[in-house]
């Protein structure tokens, strides 16, 4: 424990210093029938930012988890600073100076930031001392890297972006020399992402080595020195970033050309399908999160709601989707007032022709213990097409889902596989397929491409546009400004539970939107 607290403890000494910080040789890993990593070779130079890209399920997280000692490889060697090492658990990795920020955060929700940071690196047997030590150390890190986060708030009260800071702080606190980040920006706003990259840059300049997994080629091009591409468990290429291009990478990843920007023609808005009138919503704790919001969405248009995570988007979506009873205001769907929905309100709204792709697929959109086909009817289980009366027509449900698997290219193509065993992107496809194929009049979508690879992103975006052109009213909530801008016909900016401005995606420039999202002089901007 002690050693971990002193960053200098595992600095590479002399001779080894020139060797690559990380070298993987012929790594293999299988989960039952799934061969997640095959003969992976990877070499990461010290003091560089090394990007890894690949489709969902390509095996990126698995590979990194092996390097971090969370999983143990079936075969293959790991070299750190030129020395062959055996990493049989995370503490081995930590003492080798390897730190990791996981794709799904490893934080204890009802602990404070401080407690999470010290967990496992307490030093002394009594908390009092370790905590005060950590507090000052935390202040230092915050100063050096601009990673402010109040040490005594509970994790569950933090926005995702802040939670990620905690993850990074955890790694730095343990004096990591080699930092692995698994899809760190999936949940960040552009501002937050830029900040993160500044932090990474600082770290690199200090000689630390960084491995960055991401689906966003823009980020790869922006910050990495070299990039490796994985496909279906194999390492298909490693190139210096300067010698490649997004298009080239995309092709390597997917194995075909991909169109990186959405091309859609003018929207032809029809009459109002979804209207929200000064809606006020509170969260579970009773705190008002949405403050008298009003807007409407017309048939055949995509309205994007831009905003920093945690400004009321979640509550807004849940209220509209009938999952949360608003404190005040009205929601009008297809002309029906549906504000006072009870506990089963979501069902009622689906009948009114509203489909909902929730922000957090794992928590809300899926029952991960269900077989995939079972999730493909979640929320629609009562429809007659899945069996009349009480009975559930398993055959029909499975057949229908098999169709979707092909159409949405869901992998592995096995309707009876447990949903938990699909990778993030494929899980998202299961949800999208379910909601879009209902051909609803109104579709509300939260973070449709969070943690999804570009191949899938292209596909998903096209689907959304297709729905618009089919005359559906679409409400899109995303923290991905790019996504909002490339998809929306109108952009509403939400800040602290209020709509602080509306912008036209064509004209609006990134900076202006960014300021609105940050709540800066929103009054003027609103005009």
């Amino acid at each position, binding site marked *: 424990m002690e050693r971990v607290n002193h960053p200098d403890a595992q600095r590479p000494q002399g001779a080894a210093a020139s060797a690559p910080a990380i070298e993987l040789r012929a790594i293999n890993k*299988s989960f039952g029938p799934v061969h997640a990593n095959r003969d992976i070779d990877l070499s990461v130079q010290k003091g560089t930012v090394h990007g890894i890209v690949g489709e969902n399920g390509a095996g990126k997280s698995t590979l990194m988890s092996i390097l971090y000692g969370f999983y143990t490889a079936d075969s293959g060697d790991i070299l750190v600073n030129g020395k062959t090492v055996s990493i049989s658990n995370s503490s081995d990795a930590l003492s080798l100076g390897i730190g990791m920020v996981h794709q799904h955060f490893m934080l204890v929700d009802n602990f404070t930031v401080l407690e999470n940071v010290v967990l496992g690196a307490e030093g002394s047997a009594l908390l009092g001392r370790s905590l005060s030590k950590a507090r000052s150390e935390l202040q230092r890190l915050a100063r050096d890297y601009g990673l402010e986060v109040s040490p005594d708030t509970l994790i569950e009260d933090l926005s995702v972006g802040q939670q990620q800071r905690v993850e990074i702080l955890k790694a730095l606190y343990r004096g990591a020399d080699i930092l692995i980040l698994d899809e760190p920006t999936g949940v960040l706003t552009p501002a937050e992402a830029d900040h993160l990259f500044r932090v990474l840059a600082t770290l690199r300049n200090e000689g630390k080595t960084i491995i960055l997994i991401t689906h966003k080629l823009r980020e790869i091009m922006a910050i990495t020195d070299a990039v490796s591409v994985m496909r279906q468990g194999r390492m298909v290429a490693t190139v210096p970033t300067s010698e490649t291009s997004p298009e080239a990478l995309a092709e390597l990843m997917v194995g075909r050309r991909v169109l990186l920007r959405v091309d859609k023609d003018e929207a032809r808005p029809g009459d109002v399908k979804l209207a929200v009138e000064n809606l006020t919503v509170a969260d579970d704790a009773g705190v008002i999160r949405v403050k008298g919001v009003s807007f409407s969405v017309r048939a055949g248009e995509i309205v994007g709601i831009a905003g920093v995570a945690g400004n009321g988007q979640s509550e807004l979506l849940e209220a509209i989707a009938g*999952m949360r009873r608003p404190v005040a205001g009205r929601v009008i769907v297809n002309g029906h007032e549906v504000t006072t929905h009870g506990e089963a309100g979501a069902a009622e709204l689906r009948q009114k022709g509203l489909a909902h792709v929730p922000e957090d697929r794992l928590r809300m959109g899926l*029952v991960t*213990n269900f077989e995939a086909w079972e999730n493909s*009817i979640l*929320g629609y289980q*009562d429809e007659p097409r899945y069996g009349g009366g009480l*009975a*559930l027509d398993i055959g029909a449900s499975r057949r229908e889902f098999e169709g979707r698997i092909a159409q949405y290219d869901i992998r592995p193509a096995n309707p009876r596989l447990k949903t938990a065993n699909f990778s993030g992107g494929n899980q998202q496809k299961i949800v999208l397929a379910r909601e879009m194929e209902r051909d609803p009049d109104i579709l509300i979508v939260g973070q449709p491409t969070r943690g999804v690879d570009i191949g899938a992103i292209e596909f998903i975006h096209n689907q959304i546009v297709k729905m618009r052109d089919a005359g559906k009213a679409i409400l899109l909530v995303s923290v991905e400004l790019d996504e909002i801008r490339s998809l929306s016909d109108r952009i509403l900016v939400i800040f602290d539970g209020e709509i602080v401005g509306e912008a036209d995606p064509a004209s609006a420039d990134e900076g202006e939107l960014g300021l609105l999202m940050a709540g800066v002089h929103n009054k003027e901007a609103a005009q």
Partner: protein
Amino acid sequence: MSARVPLPAWVDRILLPVLNVSLAFLIGGIVVLLVGQNPLEAVQIMLYGAFGYGDGFGYTLYYTTNFIFAGLAVSLAYHAGLFNIGAEGQGYIAGLGVILVALWLNGTHWALMMPLMLVAGALFGAFWAFIPGYLQAKRGSHVVITTILFNFIATSLMSYLISRVLKPAGVSADESARIEAVTRVPQLREFIPFFGYSPVNLTFPLAIAALFGVWFLIWRTKFGYAVRALGFNPTAAHYAGISNARLIMITMALSGGLAGLVALNEVAGVQGRLILNFMAGAGFVGIAVAFMGRAHPIGVALAALLFGALYQGGQELAFSMPAITRDMIVTIQALVILFTGAMGEMLRPPLERIFARRAPAVARPAE
């Protein structure tokens, strides 16, 4: 699990459990040896006692009936993410329903009475489970505590009703008046002499039906779908427009209703009267049965049969081997629960190694 190679279904669902049971008996056998008895002979006696002749087999099935109902009760609730420790009390209270109807229309033919007593028992049991369900759904009171407490309350309530209200004066035993023969649920021996004197009765076929019914309910109906969604992920269930509170209350009631059918077997089928503590722990065995059967009717059926056999075989053993007391039997049962239930995975890794060698083809990546 991190199964290198998933076991063939028959190994997973048949061979493994069988090996586990054998293991339990092996340990039990050692204890038997310690008291200077011959384990093999003991096993013989148990097997013969449980399956060897009509009477014995009948008793086995009679116990199995109770355990199926109790096991299903716990399983059903479990699929909704509810842990119902109260089957014991629910069954006990259900006995009241059964006896009230029975005594009210005492003398009426069973063909008419059986459905009535069934409904009454189920309703009373359901009621006793519904309250904890309601408290869980509306007040957030943890169903585990409330069901535990309701067991205790049931004991007091029934003790009062039996010894102070239902007990006819002049009768020394604390028990209700008798149900007349015509009114009782007929025992199978009346149709099938093979069953000798054993008390297995028409509630046994009912239990089999219940097995299928629950399987269908959970995996083949929309209700069951909702129940499992709720059990796995309440948030997702809410998202799916399912009313969790309502579902919790219904499921608990159904669960209690199933537990209540134990009373039909005991009161209307076997005892012909309401006696103190007729549940005799069946509700708690139900917990073991449910979890050993992985809350799946097939599993429940097998586990219930296993316990039925242990109870009856155990009686036979205690009878013909006086050195082996009833406590010894309880011990063996505990070992069975331990090895087939809690430690059921112990033999998986070795088996996997064996079958991995046998079928390397499966090991290939599936892409």
